């Protein structure tokens, strides 16, 4: 038994979800290798070689991987898939984009978003926005798996000393090309790996108020900022803030939901948080049904007061 984890990275470093995928791969048994498909990605490959429990790093370095196009990365994974029993991706926008191309070409089923490994061929995964958990068994010899980061601890980023092997890169498919990227720059932690998240909903009222009320609290706590789909749809913040069934799935130590009513699809994205705080003026809001600590009242007074009293 052996597994190949497909790293999500920015050529210099690994994205955190890769480390959770390594833990899931280790639970399958046997050796765990990491594929870094990138351009000038020696830094990411070296980071991968230090990950605890990884015995080999494959580095495919070529122009074709500069922008992580699914056609090219999937073709590279397929070129290397032969000896592996499991091809393991983080269940991020990156991994979700690529994995099904690999599975379909291999003519095997894909196991999406696993949250536990019950045995080498049996897994649990949430369905219906997390309102049910399915236990599924794969019948194909080779398995393509995407791993929900919140279901597994991150593997230690140091302690390993895997060899880095350069592999022949595939040629560019030529069918798609990268045009541009608009990535919001901010100094806050990434939503999916943050220890504390401050999240705002429609109750915050406006984009201006979102920043005015929530940013001081996030600054004080060193927290990432999130939002409900309602807040994103209302244009308060960009889509990459969205936590929920169709946004990001998070499980921080502390999730502070401000002006969020608690629609099912939002709860699907954050109910595995260790501690949930809800601040809402409506005492009947469903968010209080999952919150450890609820505070009923006007968020425009309570949140600044919270910042003040935290000192």
């Amino acid at each position: 038994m052996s597994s190949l984890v497909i790293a999500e990275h920015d050529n210099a470093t690994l994205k955190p979800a890769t480390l959770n995928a390594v833990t899931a791969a280790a639970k399958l048994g046997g050796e765990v290798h990491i594929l870094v498909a990138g351009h000038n990605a020696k830094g990411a490959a070296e980071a991968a070689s230090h990950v605890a429990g990884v015995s080999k790093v494959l580095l495919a370095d070529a122009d074709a991987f500069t922008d992580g196009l699914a056609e090219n990365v999937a073709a590279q994974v397929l070129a290397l898939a032969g000896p592996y029993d499991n091809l393991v991706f983080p269940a991020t926008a990156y991994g979700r984009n690529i994995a099904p191309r690999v599975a379909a070409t291999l003519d095997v089923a894909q196991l999406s978003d696993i949250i536990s490994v019950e045995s080498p061929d049996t897994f649990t995964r949430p369905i219906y926005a997390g309102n049910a958990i399915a236990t599924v068994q794969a019948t194909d010899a080779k398995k393509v798996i995407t791993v929900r980061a919140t279901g597994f601890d991150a593997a230690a980023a140091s302690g390993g000393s895997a060899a880095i092997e350069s592999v022949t890169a595939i040629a560019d498919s030529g069918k798609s090309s990268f045009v541009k990227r608009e990535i919001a720059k901010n100094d806050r932690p990434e939503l999916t790996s943050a220890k504390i998240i401050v999240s705002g909903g429609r109750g915050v009222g406006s984009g201006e108020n979102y920043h005015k009320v929530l940013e001081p609290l996030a600054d004080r706590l060193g927290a990432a900022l999130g939002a409900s789909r309602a807040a994103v749809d209302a244009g308060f913040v960009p889509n990459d803030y969205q936590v929920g069934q169709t946004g990001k799935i998070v499980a921080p130590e502390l999730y502070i939901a401000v002006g969020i009513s608690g629609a099912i699809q939002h709860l699907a994205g954050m109910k595995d948080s260790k501690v949930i705080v809800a601040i809402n003026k409506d005492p009947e809001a469903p968010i209080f049904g999952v919150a450890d600590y609820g505070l009923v009242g006007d968020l425009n007074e309570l949140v600044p007061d919270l910042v003040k009293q935290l000192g």
Partner: protein
Amino acid sequence: MKILVAVKRLVDYNVKVRVKSDQTGVDIANVKMSMNPFDEIGVEEAVRQREAGAATEVIVVSCGVTQCQETLRTAMAIGADRAILVESADELQPLAVAKLLTAIIAREKPGLVILGKQAIDDDSNQVGQMVAALSSMPQATFASKLTIANDRAEVTREVDGGLETLSLALPAVVTTDLRLNEARYVTLPNIMKAKKKPLEILKPADLNVDVSPRLKTLKVSEPPSRKAGIKVPDVAALIGKLKNEAKVI
């Protein structure tokens, strides 16, 4: 150019599903069924492209039980021109659906294939990418903007951290995200018109596709429930709890 859109019939997004007591699945008897919301966005986008002159015909396809005809009629009421149902009472998993759609694509030769990014029942997020791979097409998943010009599709995608724009050679596969558009309200005259539009019914065997499931669902259970906590009277009490009881700040 033809645009082919895949639509899935599933439990309406407003319904809170219940796990069956024998853990064989969720109870969908007597539950309201609708079109997958992402697929509805896909139909709307295809119709808008046709209205803008980028396409000449919109074909909708569904794979599943006889009642999927209702879903296809809804898609035609939004504005699709004709429909194909690949009828099967068996469980159709994503790989099987991708193979059925690939067979239809080989027959219809659309210039663009649009699917929802995921179905909100099994939350797999697989079929679009699988269709692209099996049809040897480029893909742009999680689309929030689509422009067709000069035999290429320019697609803005919602990715972690922001947006990314790709240019794809047609034919290509696009999967929709929520902010691509807002589907129009279906009017009564259009519902009546949709009843007269052609709807072809095929079986998986007609397309020579083996749809046997590859994943066995051993059980479906309730998620661990989260107990409601307490309401605290004021900010000071909240800080006290977070510091001394939860120890998270």
